């Protein structure tokens, strides 16, 4: 199982423009496996990504839009894509301007494989 998770993170991290990827325990908000440029930010990234996903999921549910599959945050210095899969979240951090089509496709595949 842990090899599968490590492979998934490695595959996401190798996409051009991706700075790092992280699998997060959705309920605890803790990092499970990750490849980030700075490992020390993994706990904060995991906690905040889980919180953002939970809150966005509630907003989406409240608007009767069904279950949240993934969402994207865009900022001046980077982009974050978060996709839900079972009890895990797939978090991908990419450089600004990176086309996220392939990232989103891969992240959803990983999320689906984990659910």
């Amino acid at each position, binding site marked *: 199982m842990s090899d599968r998770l490590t492979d998934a993170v490695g595959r996401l991290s190798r996409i051009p423009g991706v700075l790092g990827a992280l699998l997060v325990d959705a309920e*605890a908000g*803790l990092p499970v496996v990750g490849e980030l440029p700075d490992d020390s930010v993994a*706990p*904060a990234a995991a*906690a905040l990504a*889980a919180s953002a996903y*939970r809150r966005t999921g509630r907003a989406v549910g409240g608007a009767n839009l069904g279950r949240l599959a993934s969402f994207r945050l865009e900022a001046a210095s980077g982009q974050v894509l978060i996709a839900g899969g079972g009890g895990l979240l797939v978090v991908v951090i990419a450089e600004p301007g990176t086309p996220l089509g392939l990232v989103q496709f891969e992240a959803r595949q990983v999320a689906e494989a984990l659910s």
Partner: protein
Amino acid sequence: MRRGDLTDVIDALREPVRAFVRDARVRVALVVDPSGQLLAQQGLTNGYEVANVASLAAAAHASARALAQLTAAERWNYLHQVGRERQLFLAPFKTPAEELILVAIFDDDSSLGLVLLYFEDFARRVGDLPQFRTVDAGGSAETFEADLEAGLRHIMPPDWL
């Protein structure tokens, strides 16, 4: 133990505790010293509950510390208990003056990761307070009950006790 400056300490802790509750999205936060004296609380509205949680936190801390010593660990970092609806987080942290214990109770609006993230910042903020920069005398089993009551009297309205 902290009879003289208790009001000052309680006032100083109010803002860091409020910020922790807001940022970590916990329902309840208490700061207790190892003798069970309550120094700050936010979230509980019943004096009886606060007294119970404060004394249980001090007892859990003493047991966990003894267990850590038995297993050759220098100290324990935190205790996390997951209930059906709520979760309990209990963690000791050091200030230059003394060791304190943070107790946080949260539901699915928060997570262990979020609590850990803001706990670190909270502990640093409390350690930087002037009220916790000088070493104080420690409490004892004999002063446990008196310390607990002194803390409650300062924090809870009289009609809740």
